């Protein structure tokens, strides 16, 4: 399912002339780590968000194709419309997908550089053991 999640995230945070996209952010490593470290419930929510994202173009751009098969212009329009849909549960599921994607994207050194923020060192992931 990770590829489905990845494809949705790349559409939600595409590379533009202004900013790097999610695909520029070691997304594969991030998703692997996130899947390993997060709770099963959280990962389930992310996967559910990705499934809804890919199965809903019929309702947003009126094309009976999964999002990952859409041409880029339509995929872009779909990404915006599904994220702002009036259907609360769908919007929340897409938000659950956007949350980790945003965490990966916003911590990227190049993104931070564009915002005049210093790069962040790696999280230590340590605690007192004595």
């Amino acid at each position, binding site marked *: 399912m990770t590829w489905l999640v990845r494809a949705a995230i790349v559409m939600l*945070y595409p590379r533009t002339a202004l900013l790097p996209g999610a695909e520029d952010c070691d997304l594969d490593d991030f998703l692997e780590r996130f899947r390993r470290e997060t709770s099963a419930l959280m990962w389930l929510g992310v996967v559910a968000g990705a499934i809804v994202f890919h199965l809903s173009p019929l309702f947003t751009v009126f094309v009976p194709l999964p999002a990952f098969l859409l041409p880029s212009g339509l995929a872009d329009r779909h990404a915006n419309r599904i994220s702002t849909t009036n259907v*609360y549960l769908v919007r929340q599921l*897409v938000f659950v997908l956007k949350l980790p994607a*945003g965490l*990966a994207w*916003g911590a990227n050194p190049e993104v931070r550089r564009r915002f005049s923020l210093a790069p962040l060192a790696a999280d230590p*992931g340590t605690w007192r053991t004595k």
Partner: protein
Amino acid sequence: MTGSHVPFRAQGEGELDAEVDFVVVGSGAGGATAAVTLARSGASVAIVEAGAWRDPEDYPLTAYGGMRDLMDDWGSLVTVGRAFWPIVQARTMGGTTVINSAICVRTPDDIFAQWDSVHGISGLRDRVREAQDWIEKDLTVEEVPVTSRGRSNLLAKQGGDRLSWPSSHYMRRYTKGCEGAGQCLQGCGKRRKQSTNLNYVPETLARGGLIVSSAPVQRILSEGSRAVGVTGRFSHPTTRAEGTRFRVRARKAVVVAASVTHSPVLLMRSGVKSPALGKYFRAHPGTGVFGCYDDPVDMNIGATQGWASTAFRDTPGLKLETLAIPPELVASRFAGGGTELMQRLSEYRHVAMWCHAVRAESTGTIRQSLFGGRPVVRYGLDRPDMERFRQGMVLLAKQHVAAGAKAVIPGISGMPFKLGKDEIHLLEDAPLDPQRYVAILSHLFGGCVMGKDPKTSVVDGRGRVHGWDGLVVADASVIPTNLGLNPQHTIMGLAATFAADLLD
């Protein structure tokens, strides 16, 4: 006379069995203050904390790391109701004091008067104030230093002043020389924020205490109606793998300070029967309004929260504050997706987020889930509270405009993403459906409320659970009213008072 710290123990390692005078469950504002009060009297004290003990050099730097290492279950607890609003709580040594902005506000007189007249709790005012005096001295309370204010806080002050709000001030916080690193939410790696893992917990240890970390308490041990200790299994800080069992017996009392959501559930699991248990949950639901400025604001440079106004605490019932969030969180907070979203995010340097906290009158309940015993919080806002919520957004939008913003981003589903300064009046007719808003619950109260009547309260005015001996609750769950202010100082004052009562 230094005590000992027992971190995670895997299965197969020896079980922990210990006995002390007092066992304190939780190490946040309530637990740590209660523990140090008891330890200073010479009593032997154990703090049993569900999270790991992380020092500033262990703190994460990214928001991802913050959610993984410091938040309770990745911050995934949400209200169950018409809308799913996240509940912000930490799970680490020091509790939520590690991830909050350490805002210090004394408990106002009207709160004590309300506790007295409505809940029959009298005599707390002077004692809580006395405790707040020494806590302020212990932890150092300072106004946000001039050099750390950052442009977002300066603009907020400017906006509030231009609107002639009677209260528009830089915050007083438990910090020592804040450097304005903008990392409050991930724990202050500069050691400036005085979270309890840096002071009261180490002091308890230095006074011979036992600190047990990564140890979520499953139940309170009892003999008849007397609490005699706690038990549970260690939980690995990252994998959450179950470790070996621990049992810490209390010769004198068990003090529960596991948070508003966990304390009621722990009492339920431990056989405490009270018609009020898990009821009267209250909160400060809130949301942020972004202002868009011509010049860069760089809100992540400077104190994460540095400005506040209490001008609207009584009418309509709001607290206003600044709150800087990093790009990682703005990325999901901004509506939209695709190139439209990227266009919006490109303005990050030019936006400032200020937020409100609604002094909501709505109440909810806390129960344990059928699977795993996690807390389930049922909560929603009634119409008057939603009107307050909306009014708070209007005030924030006006404040941004007064500070020079050319537009605001309210984040209301179904409304334009951005409203020009001539369009902010549209917010006055914004929908009142909570599903349209992106909100969080930051300050929580209730679930084990104090009061005179055991039918409507769980603990008395000294934090003692009705009908039990040696069982005290000392966190925000005892607070029976909505403070309308940041609660950390009130929680600490109450915990110190309840702990001192145990020594009588």
